[in-house]
């Protein structure tokens, strides 16, 4: 609320986008609530009512944001580097896609290397093996000692084979 005169500046794009997202969310929740059977019982408030109130709240906040976007005008923000952000998102996506097929260590090693690259360690020939070794050590500690169930792949199978044949 900087007290600017309305109409002299362009609306703030980010706040407008937030308003749109909130409106969409409100509609999604409202339509989902509409298909629920109304079983209010004694309370008169069933499973669909609280979602409706939250949807109304979201719609109200959406409106508030839209007004705010026009009132406060465009605000300056520090520009962001897209490259590193995409590397991390890509690393997470790769881990997600590969986890069940190649196992925890290799998939997580790739995430490790992608993150290291985002922060400036560009040599993937170094970071991928380091990452896989690190993830394998983490795997052995958590799956072996702390009995966490982590997806195993060929590499984990090999290591367990060297120890005893079967995990655990």
């Amino acid at each position, binding site marked *: 609320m900087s007290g600017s005169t309305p109409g002299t500046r362009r609306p703030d794009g*980010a706040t407008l986008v937030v308003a749109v997202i909130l409106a969409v969310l409100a509609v999604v929740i409202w339509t*989902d609530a509409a298909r629920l059977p109304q*079983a209010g019982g004694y*309370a008169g*408030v069933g499973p669909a009512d609280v979602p409706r109130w939250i949807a109304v709240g979201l719609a109200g906040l959406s409106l508030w944001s839209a007004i705010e976007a026009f009132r406060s005008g465009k605000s300056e923000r*520090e520009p962001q580097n897209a490259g590193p952000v995409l590397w991390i998102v890509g690393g997470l996506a790769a881990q997600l896609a590969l986890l069940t097929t190649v196992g925890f260590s290799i998939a997580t090693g790739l995430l490790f290397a992608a*993150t290291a690259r985002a922060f400036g360690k560009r040599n993937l020939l170094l970071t991928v093996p380091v990452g896989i070794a690190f993830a394998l050590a*983490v795997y052995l500690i*958590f799956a072996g000692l702390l*009995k966490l169930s982590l997806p195993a792949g060929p590499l984990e199978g090999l290591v367990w084979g060297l120890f005893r044949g079967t995990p655990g």
Partner: protein
Amino acid sequence: MNTFDFLLQGLSVALDPMILLYALIGVTLGTAVGVLPGIGPALTVALLLPVTYGLDPAGSLIMFAGIYYGGMYGGSTTSILLNTPGESASIVTALEGNKMARAGRGGPALATAAIGSFIAGLAATVLLAFVAPTVVKLALVFGPRDYFALMVLAFVTVSSAFGESARKGLISLFIGLALALVGIDQLTGQARLAYGVPQLLDGIEVTTLAVAMFAVGEALFVAGQRNAVDDEVIAVKGSVWMTARDWARSWKPWLRGTIIGFPIGAMPAGGADIATFLSYATEKKMSKHPEEFGNGAIEGVAGPEAANNASAAGTLVPLLTLGLPTTATAAIMLAGFQQFGLQPGPLLFATNPQLVWGLIASLLIANFMLLVLNLPLIGLWVRLLTIPRPWLYAGILVFATLGTIGANPSPVELSMLLIFGVMGYGMRLYGYPIAPVVVGLILGPMAEQQLRRALSISQGDLTTLVGSPVSATLLALSAIALIVPLILRARGKGAVLNQLASDED
């Protein structure tokens, strides 16, 4: 039995060698992770939750409480030596502590922070032990409408009372409440917003959301910054011991910090940040050397650090006695209880006194362990600060995904981690607070349940919500906490509220 008997009984649980070992592992891990730059207590407990999956409830919760306290100690080291507070509650510590470190007085700054944390932690934990039974008695007369009103108050204080803008805080809260709707309705068994995906029927895991928003979101945000320069770690020169003058100037701030911190933590009134800020302001006002403030006044480290830890213990009062988390960290701790099917609240004191009192007694012991870990061994933790960023964040993301995979190795869960991580990045970028999302997610279903129970009792009469003195008072307080800051901001007095912003806990 009175509190003393219960506490002695708890000590007999906590002094079991295995339990002592769990507590030691917890405080060590908590300190180690808490010291890492950019990691606050909320993320520390979320990242380390999987470590406790394999243990029995008592061992796991005690280790977990150790992690919580350890994370609080570790955060102060980071802010003194690095000037990038790992947690919002340490921002004030960084103000004076970093100046002291630059002037070559890093040792005494760390010492006054550690001893202050110790004294405050000890006093506040004892206070917790004495206050808890009274609150439990009070809680037994609370009906559903009173609980609902209490939760509404927590919603308002966490989201909109402090911080940059009420609109942004409320948006974060409602996103959390919307996410909380996903899954099976607890009262009627109806599936809401699940769209036939079996993993969604269980609802959205608090830990997945917290790790995604705090760890993944933070990593993306730091990676995206253009002019990122590594902050310089200031070496600790000279003795870590305090001089007689340092002691003389520290002991009063420690006590005042404790007195300020504990009630603020115990009330549903936002996190430790407010306590540290108030303590700093008090010390500045009462100091005989006000000119030193801003240039490394030891009181400005001693008071806020004590307030910080006292309020961390205070947060456990509503969490243990009412099952009400008032910070993001407490929300994750509640998730830690729930993984064993334990619901903190008055009933837990009756059905599982061994566990509750063992936990409280362990906290006392954890404080002694932390004092030893943080004074003589400080050099070890300082070395952790020098881990280069690429390895640090790569490691953080490995552990972030490890927790999610370990809890539920499904692509759906990992996709949620990715989506919420990107969402956390966006929210951080545009200044939307994250804590209200986490608190909304865990408190949303509880508030809905209490509301519907209250309305069942009154057969749908809405006036029942203000029908008891307790609920009417709490709802009135909520309304004040919502409206007064709006007026203050509209009159351009929002700067103070802004400084009290609660980023993380």
